């Protein structure tokens, strides 16, 4: 069952990769090995523009969403009472399950109203980034919150007790402790942004085509081998990234276990030295 499940998850992806090396223009028909679709891809200015735009948006989104999401997560985990806490927690968890069409539609209506009233923002990279930050920050907030819930609050109290003012506690203790959650949140926000089609389609303006929007417009016209080539590159990058991340994590875990065992074995040695 496990194998079947994973076959279901992975066979479509392998086929994507397989057909990216197909010489034939018609995807399901094998016409011999070729890398010409990669060359077409790299020569297309349209693709490059879309990639650059998407990366710009993804980096800005990830950075701001991590900042705002971390604040929201800290607020949820560490501040027990403030006005409108229920509404706040609702607004953090709602974007996680909100259908994209609704988020896209409502944000577009807001942007149009705003630009009528104050002449800002113009539709394009700004509006897409704002829209992405809005739903990404909710994901970051949830990650940060669940990390903080697992951290003993007395660590922050101890710092205060030792004379650290609240902002120093934040900088010296809270931020280093949630650093792994911040990294995970940044990466998640980054991929969420790169992956989004629907919301970007709603709020983008003329001329600003993100990579998913470009892929979508091509795919709508049928199977395209250069899209397969693009997919192969993305899968490759992600796989390498995930393997490296997994390797680093498991190494840290092993080191931690080793240290722990060493410390425990010394437990009684120390009392011996006192006598």
């Amino acid at each position: 069952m496990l194998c079947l499940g994973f076959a279901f998850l992975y066979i479509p992806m392998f086929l994507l990769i397989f057909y990216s090396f197909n010489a034939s223009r018609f995807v399901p028909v094998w016409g011999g090995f070729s890398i010409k679709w990669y060359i077409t891809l790299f020569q297309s200015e349209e693709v490059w523009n879309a990639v650059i735009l998407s990366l710009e948006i993804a980096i800005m989104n990830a950075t701001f969403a991590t900042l705002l999401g971390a604040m929201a997560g800290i607020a949820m985990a560490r501040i027990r009472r403030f006005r409108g806490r229920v509404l706040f927690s609702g607004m953090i968890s709602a974007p996680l399950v909100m259908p994209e069409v609704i988020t896209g539609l409502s944000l577009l209506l807001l942007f149009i109203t705003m630009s009528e009233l104050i002449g800002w923002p113009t539709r394009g990279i700004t509006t897409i980034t704002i829209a992405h930050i809005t739903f990404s920050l909710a994901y970051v907030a949830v990650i940060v919150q669940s990390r903080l819930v697992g951290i003993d609050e007395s660590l922050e109290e101890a710092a205060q007790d030792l004379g650290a003012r609240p902002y120093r506690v934040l900088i010296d203790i809270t931020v280093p402790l949630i650093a792994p959650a911040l990294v995970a949140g940044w990466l998640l926000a980054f991929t969420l942004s790169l992956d989004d089609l629907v919301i970007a389609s709603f709020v983008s303006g003329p001329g600003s085509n993100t990579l998913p929007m470009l892929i979508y417009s091509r795919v709508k016209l049928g199977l395209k081998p250069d899209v397969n080539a693009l997919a192969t590159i993305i899968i490759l990058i992600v796989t390498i990234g995930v393997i490296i991340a997994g390797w680093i994590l498991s190494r840290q875990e092993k080191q931690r276990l080793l240290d722990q065992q060493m410390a425990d074995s010394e437990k009684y040695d120390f009392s011996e030295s006192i006598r």
Partner: protein
Amino acid sequence: MTQATDTSKLFENQPWLDPDAEPFVKIRALTKTFGSFTAVSSVDLDIYEGELFSLLGGSGCGKTTLLRMLAGFEEPSSGTISIDGVDMANIPPYQRPVNMMFQSYALFPHMTVEQNVGYGLKQDRVEKNEIAERVAEILAIVELTPFNKRKPHQLSGGQRQRVALARSLVKKPKVLLLDEPLAALDKRLREQTQFELMNIQHQLGVTFIVVTHDQEEAMTLSTRIAVMDQGQFSQIGTPTDIYEYPQTRFVANFIGSANMFEGRVVENGDNHVIVRSSHGDLSFYIDHSFEIRENIGVSIALRPEKITLSREVPETIDEYNTVKGIVDDIGYLGNFSIYRILLENDKIIAVTHPNQSRPRDARHLAEWDDEVLLSWAPSSPILLTK
């Protein structure tokens, strides 16, 4: 250590008995409520300089809340706290002259031992060289110098406890608050650490306030103990006071164990009181007087180790402070044995007896179903009205 005044001498005159002595920590009518729950209910407390004071009680008795109010983590609902003559109201935790050792130790996992201990000094903008010096000094006292570059997860439980202690002491606080300082250690380490804690306190002369649920720990460590129950103090006194002269049923039962009897005062003389138990043929003669009316209902507490057990049962027994019974059960604990004696009125009394000889054939002082005589000195029964 310049402050290493001889604290044992300081307490020979017992400042708490001197009405003119100025308390170091002064708590007045302190109350803390959480919604409808009252955690601490209008308590008054004086703690003197150099004391090792314990707050003892079960979980939820309000001892931790009291400690957290001293540290500044909880704001009192009403009442005042002053330390060394300064009112602590509106002073945030990071400006109070107290430091706290947390139950979980709360060591910063991303900092080394050295960085952990030096953190508080860094917050006070102490010069770098001086920080290094003072950290090295305190690490030497807790014997952790070789471990200064390790991170908390590379230390054993006992070592972590020392780092936490060093970290909270390095700023030379006026008062050190310790929340269950030994609870996370295993039994063997705990007993040893108790004495080390006392030595360090003695050496530095800092006032310690310890929260604990472990009565043995409180008895060993403290100059005085406050027994807490339901947000109030049941009794405040030296370990001997608390054990030998408990003032309430709660304290008598909570500290050590006690056989409890309900009774009635039948005679109140100048230097003695006689109480007749409502369980039947059992009377207590107490050799000191109480201000109490005759014929009033009271309780008598009798410690199991204060009772003498004998297999020789005479025909007629004394009128007071003796009773006959049958051995119902025996528990052998190695250093002593517990005998559970069934009285004629179906009440069971626990008696402990040290196992001074090494029995081989006769295993116990008395055997199951033996008839025995219990007796005690007239100074032993504790009369309780609350």
